[in-house]
């Protein structure tokens, strides 16, 4: 059944699948263990989980392995996997105040209650390539760990404490408030398509699952002048927060902890009228894992999307939210690789007729024109004018 191309299609797919597997394993290096990826590629997996909107470090590691380290492709796999599971629980609202803090800084004040805790960061390291890692051995690792552990007196370690929020200081002084009302409905954009104007809950949810690079570009554009949000980091914290759900017996149960990054970006809120005080307001960023660029840019865009009257891209809800989902953007831009010959043929048919009309018109205008037929003036415009519909 079917003519020649049929067999070719299926076979080519199967062979391509084998070939890509060949390129993954051809050098016969030892198989990468999930544990290794999970431990040593922590930040890659954090980013994948954030963009995949799915917190599961082990599966993040598996996805990363499966796709030879392509982060966006791995995030895509997590999202598709998520679609196979049913949602049984809604957690209690995360309490980031009681976070097990691993890192917490503020740019607003030099000293803050609890102090500036740098935590695990490469911000102040020089980005020089470290050739010592080329010959890293288990002995090196053990030696480092032993030395690291010895800096703490294991018999009397300090108590774990939590940290007050910088924004609470400003709020207590009455300096922090939103001067414009906001749609406070809580919607879930995975259950219904977003509608515009989108309530803030939908915007925050979409930004939390957006692609890091996408919101970074837009957040940056806003700071550079296209949107006028240039905030201060009120507080940036990274750490573990408890997740609690209600079990079938109706009891509140602890089910584990997840790592998140939280950014509170302080800006001046727009004033409502002449007499209004320019209060501070925050742009809020929160995402899975340690991904500070993302949390900061989410905070910038949260603010930028509440800025009225400025028509920069970063202020435009539809522009920002429709174009920063990495999985969707990747899918559609790469679908250009699919055949389009039917649509192309349809446009071609129009263009040929238009060209014929033009030539006929030129001929009618008189015989003075050169014998050489002129090229059509704007051949490309036929497709360019209607780019969306040819997909």
């Amino acid at each position, binding site marked *: 059944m079917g003519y020649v191309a049929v067999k070719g299609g299926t076979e080519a*797919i199967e062979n391509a699948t084998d070939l890509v597997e060949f390129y993954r394993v051809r050098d016969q290096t030892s198989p990468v263990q999930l544990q290794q990826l999970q431990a040593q590629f922590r930040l890659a997996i954090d980013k994948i989980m954030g963009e995949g909107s799915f917190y599961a470090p082990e599966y993040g590691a598996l996805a990363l392995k499966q796709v030879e380290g392509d982060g966006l492709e791995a995030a895509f796999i997590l999202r*598709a996997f998520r679609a196979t599971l049913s949602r049984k629980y809604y957690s209690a609202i995360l309490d980031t105040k009681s976070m097990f803090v691993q890192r917490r800084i503020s740019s607003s004040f030099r000293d803050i209650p609890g102090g500036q805790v740098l935590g695990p960061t490469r911000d102040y390291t020089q980005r020089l390539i470290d050739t010592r890692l080329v010959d890293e051995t288990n002995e090196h690792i053990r030696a480092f760990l032993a030395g690291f552990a010895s800096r703490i007196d294991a018999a009397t370690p300090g108590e774990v404490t939590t940290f007050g929020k910088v924004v609470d200081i400003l709020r207590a002084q009455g300096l922090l408030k939103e001067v414009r009302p906001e749609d406070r409905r809580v919607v879930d954009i995975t259950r219904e398509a*977003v509608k515009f104007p989108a309530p803030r809950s939908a915007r925050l949810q979409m930004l939390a699952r957006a692609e890091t690079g996408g919101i970074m570009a837009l957040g940056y554009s806003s700071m550079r002048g296209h949107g006028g949000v240039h905030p201060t980091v009120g507080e940036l914290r990274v750490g573990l927060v408890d997740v609690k759900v209600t079990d079938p017996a109706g009891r509140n149960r602890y089910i584990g902890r997840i790592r998140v990054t939280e950014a509170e970006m302080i800006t001046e809120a727009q004033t409502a009228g002449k007499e209004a005080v320019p209060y501070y307001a925050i742009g809020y960023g929160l995402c899975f894992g340690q991904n500070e660029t993302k949390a900061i840019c989410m905070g910038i865009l949260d603010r930028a999307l509440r800025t009225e009257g400025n028509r920069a891209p970063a202020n435009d809800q539809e522009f920002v939210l429709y174009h920063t989902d990495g*999985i969707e953007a*990747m899918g559609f831009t790469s679908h250009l690789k699919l*055949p389009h010959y039917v649509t192309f043929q349809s446009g071609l048919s*129009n263009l040929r007729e238009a060209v014929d009309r033009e030539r006929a018109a030129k001929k009618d205008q008189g015989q003075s024109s050169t014998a050489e037929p002129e090229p059509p003036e704007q051949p490309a415009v036929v497709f360019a004018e209607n780019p*969306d519909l*040819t997909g």
Partner: protein
Amino acid sequence: MIAFQKFNTQFNFAFIDESTKREIRRKLLKAICIPGYQVPYSSPEMPIARGWGTGGLHVTLSLIGRQDVFKIIDQGSDASVNACNLRDFVRRTTDCRTTFDTREATLIQSRHRITEETLSEHQILVFQVPQPEPLRGVERYERKTREMHGEADYAKMWVSLYESYVKYGDIMEGAGYPVKVNERYIMSPSPIPRWDVPNLNHSQCLFLFGAGREKRLYAVPPHTTVTPLEFEDVRFRTEKFPGIRCAMSGAEGAFMDELYGEDTTSRHVVNDSDFLDKLLANDEPPRWENPYLREVLDGLDG
């Protein structure tokens, strides 16, 4: 010792979970109740990339049952690599019978074509739609296009078509030619060629449209008026293949692919692969009834 299985992934019948299927089904009913109107839906992630047929798959997988016979075509061909991949996915998750034979199929998913063979009331055609909004070219904001549809305010669209006429001497919309459904909504028929557009009008079968990335579903029920946008003096026309014969079957009067060989000379082949197979087997399948096709076929007889 306790040892339960980890990484124990199992997929639901037709992949999508039952709760989401119900949501999609309710939205499909609404789409049928308001022909041509785009219903927003959740559009869950699929293991197929956005823009590669996820909307069509959502519809197909919410509809499909064990008794269905499934056919999928991409740009007219059952053999296109993406069609092969999606067919394999549907078969793996449903165990359904698949076919290339248009006549035998109960559920057909298509990217960018309606079959040359007519479809009956026992068949459903599901389109994969890249951009469901016919007004996007004239208005970039969803909030505004929603308002325009709500108020049936299509002035901008008409102006744009008129400008095209003034500039190029014709309406230059190619594939995805905008239509009006049930004399109310302007709709994108998905990027089918104009050749196929008249077949949407008063068909026997149900047409469903899924735009996954844009999260919209819409429908054209059977026996529904679907008219391409046109002016009194600038009429809708289908593509023309005057005097062109299929290099394989010798047939005329079907949508053709234009092929170029090494020497850059062109030949044409019937685009619809199943239709071509049937022509080659001297099995002339029943055609759609529409005046544009009638004119072409009558011209051949003459």
